[in-house]
């Protein structure tokens, strides 16, 4: 039997104004006579209004899952179920979208139909890790909803101390600046880790993100334990006729202000004939001038990836940015992809073996030192990994000659 809509004076305030209102959406779901989610969402609105009134959350976690997997369902049980019994269970299914968040409407409609039948009708596109969040499901509906989503060709995302759902920028699908195939790399890599996504058994979470260039549209550097960023090795491509056109469009002064002066390494100059002078040896592939002059400038042709490891937010030792562990590798052939997947597995294995409970990769590296991490992964040292050499003399250097020998060996093998 359909119940009455709850009174929600505070939430009603969020129906005002020009931005699309999630409260209006919740009410649309609640205001239905013939769908199973009607009473669930009336109750949910009641609890949410209670949160607004008391300024507190009332969900607690728990363990709810699907057959065969150990993660991916975020259990939510209400602490105020006696007042709001119809939303006493409000679990989320995390489902991994296609890389780059591409959909056709047939797929989206099918997802809506499934969620209308089995869940609350509320879907977040997307969660901060990049999952489709099917929010609001009773325990007994989790398995049937999952069965249908899985039969559609979608798989469950990560949660807890395992590999998490990955994210990638739009990449070569619609961006000329992508220096590698972010979508293919995302799919290839993450689909080799499904066991670690679905059956978490790591010290803590591990995230991979893929951005096609230094603009880092996937927010990888700070938000991923392993950030894979596109870059290039040879000279930037310059179309001087288009440079001249851009100088004309902006005016010489503004071109100097917006392009030349903003180069972080002063690698650019404007020639007397309004063409661009590029000191490619000083260029750090930051993308700024290319962003401004989208027609005139492009990354070089020898493209690949850089890998930064250890990004994360505060808990526990403070914010960490990812730092370079691989300055460049190609990602074109099947062998290149296999090498990336192999490296990712070694990163995961080293993390599993060496991190402390609830420690992220960046914290582990902070504790053991980058040099030990590199040694553990058998990655060659590179000057691109530091912003400057050590400033503190408290270090024991009696292995110096041996390290010099190794460096010279690496250098001569690279020269071959």
């Amino acid at each position, binding site marked *: 039997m359909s119940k009455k809509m709850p009174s929600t004076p*505070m939430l009603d305030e*969020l129906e005002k*104004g020009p*931005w*699309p*209102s*999630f409260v209006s*959406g919740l009410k649309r*779901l609640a205001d239905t006579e013939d769908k199973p989610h009607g009473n669930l969402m009336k109750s949910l609105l009641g609890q*949410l209004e209670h949160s607004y009134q008391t*300024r507190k*959350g009332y*969900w607690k*976690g728990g363990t709810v899952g699907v057959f*065969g*997997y150990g993660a991916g369902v*975020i259990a939510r049980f209400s602490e105020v179920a006696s007042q709001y019994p119809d939303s006493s269970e409000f679990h*989320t299914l995390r489902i991994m979208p*296609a890389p780059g*968040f*591409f*959909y*056709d*409407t047939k*797929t*989206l*409609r099918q997802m*809506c139909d499934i969620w209308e039948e089995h869940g609350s*009708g*509320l879907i*977040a*596109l*997307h969660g901060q890790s990049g999952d489709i969040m099917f929010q609001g499901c009773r325990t007994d509906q989790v398995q049937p909803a999952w069965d249908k989503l899985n*039969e559609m060709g*979608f*798989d469950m995302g990560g949660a807890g101390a395992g590999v998490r759902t*990955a994210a990638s920028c739009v990449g070569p699908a*619609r961006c*000329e600046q992508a220096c590698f195939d972010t*979508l293919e790399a995302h*799919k290839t890599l*993450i689909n080799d880790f499904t*066991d670690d996504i679905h059956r978490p058994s790591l010290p803590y979470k591990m995230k991979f993100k893929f951005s096609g260039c230094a*603009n880092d*549209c996937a*927010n990888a*550097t*700070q*938000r991923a334990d392993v950030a894979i960023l596109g870059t290039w090795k040879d000279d930037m491509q310059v179309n001087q006729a288009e440079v001249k056109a851009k100088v004309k469009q902006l005016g010489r002064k503004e071109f100097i202000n*917006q392009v030349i002066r903003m*180069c972080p390494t002063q690698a650019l100059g404007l020639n007397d004939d309004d063409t661009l002078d590029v000191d490619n040896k000083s260029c750090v592939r*930051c*993308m*700024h001038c290319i962003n401004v002059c*989208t*027609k005139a400038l492009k990354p070089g042709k020898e493209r690949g990836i850089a890998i930064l490891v250890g990004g994360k937010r505060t*808990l*526990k030792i403070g914010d960490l*940015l990812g730092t370079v562990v691989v300055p460049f590798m190609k990602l074109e052939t099947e062998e290149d992809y296999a090498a990336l997947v192999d490296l990712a597995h070694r990163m995961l294995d080293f993390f599993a073996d060496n991190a402390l*409970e609830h420690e992220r990769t960046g914290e582990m590296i902070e504790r053991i030192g980058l040099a030990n991490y590199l040694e553990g992964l058998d990655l060659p040292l590179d000057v691109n990994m530091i912003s400057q050499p050590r400033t503190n003399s408290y270090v024991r250097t009696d292995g110096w000659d041996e390290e010099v020998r190794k460096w010279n060996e690496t250098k001569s093998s690279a020269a071959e």
Partner: protein
Amino acid sequence: MSELRRPIECGVPDSKQFMPPVLVRNYGKWAWHDRPQPGVLRHVAEGGDQVFTVKAGTQRQMDIHTIRKLCDIADQFCDGHVRFTIRSSVEFMTPDESKVKPLIDALEAAGFPVGGTGNSVGFISHTQGWLHCDIPGTDASGVVKALMDELVDEFKHEDMPNRVKITTSCCQINCGGQGDIAINVQHTKPPVINHALVSGVCERPAVIARCPVAAIRPALVDGKPSLEVDEKKCVCCGACYPPCPPMQINDPVNSKIAIWVGGKHSSTRSKPMFHKLVAAGLPNNAPRWPEVAEVVKLILRTYKADARPWERMGEWIERIGWPRFFEMTQLPFTKYHVDTWRGGRANLNASAHLHF
């Protein structure tokens, strides 16, 4: 009971099956792009194909009726293809320039503001909040809705010096991530412990290990094993609350909102930066958080008026200096702005470079 189905462990599906054909055809072959107007991108391929992308804001937490409405628009104008951005905006793509205007009109008529491209204020990335999180100090969706109502013009126009990415987070774990402006809950009092429940609910050594300042220790309270907090050491971060819900950190009055500025993910021009604290102690004033909106708008106004083209918030402040930032915004500067965490000395001014 019927037998349970084994999962098909298929991983992520291939994206190409969902892409507009013009994207599949020109995959990896795009030559350049521009923005014909705010909210619209044009990408041109090496072979001359072009695709127009119209970007619109959503409420992220979407009911199926909203998603179906987006599908109707995609069916009508984009042959049933649609994508979302990392910040929950929706993108409609068409190779047909004549469809751009009617597409914009249809989106606006359906209540989806078109914008969020280039040097605009993008949609605010946010977290679950009271709607679904188990540890939230506030309701990110509500904060974001209230704020986007105020910033919708900045979303629809490209009038900022560079793009502005705002985030909100309902606790200090900061799931919303770094932002040019970040609006985050900041607890100001130690957790209130329900000692009767601790031994039954919490794995005590794990909780003790979780504390970043070693302020938690085992204790016997009323004859029961529990935990106690050295309140002088406690930094009120709330890290103990997720593993031990009886250590309630959320408080209707003392869980405040803080504002941070100058975070940046990209390596474009400057290296990536963390956001920095500029204001705290703002009330968690549901349902529309007017005090937060006021500070955010003040910071945006100041940045808009003073930053040079392409300077992100953090880059602008690095150029003008923090004294000038606090002077221009008139935000109070307190001892809490001075970093005390490990490595915090790097945030002090070890030079004779002074701003007057």
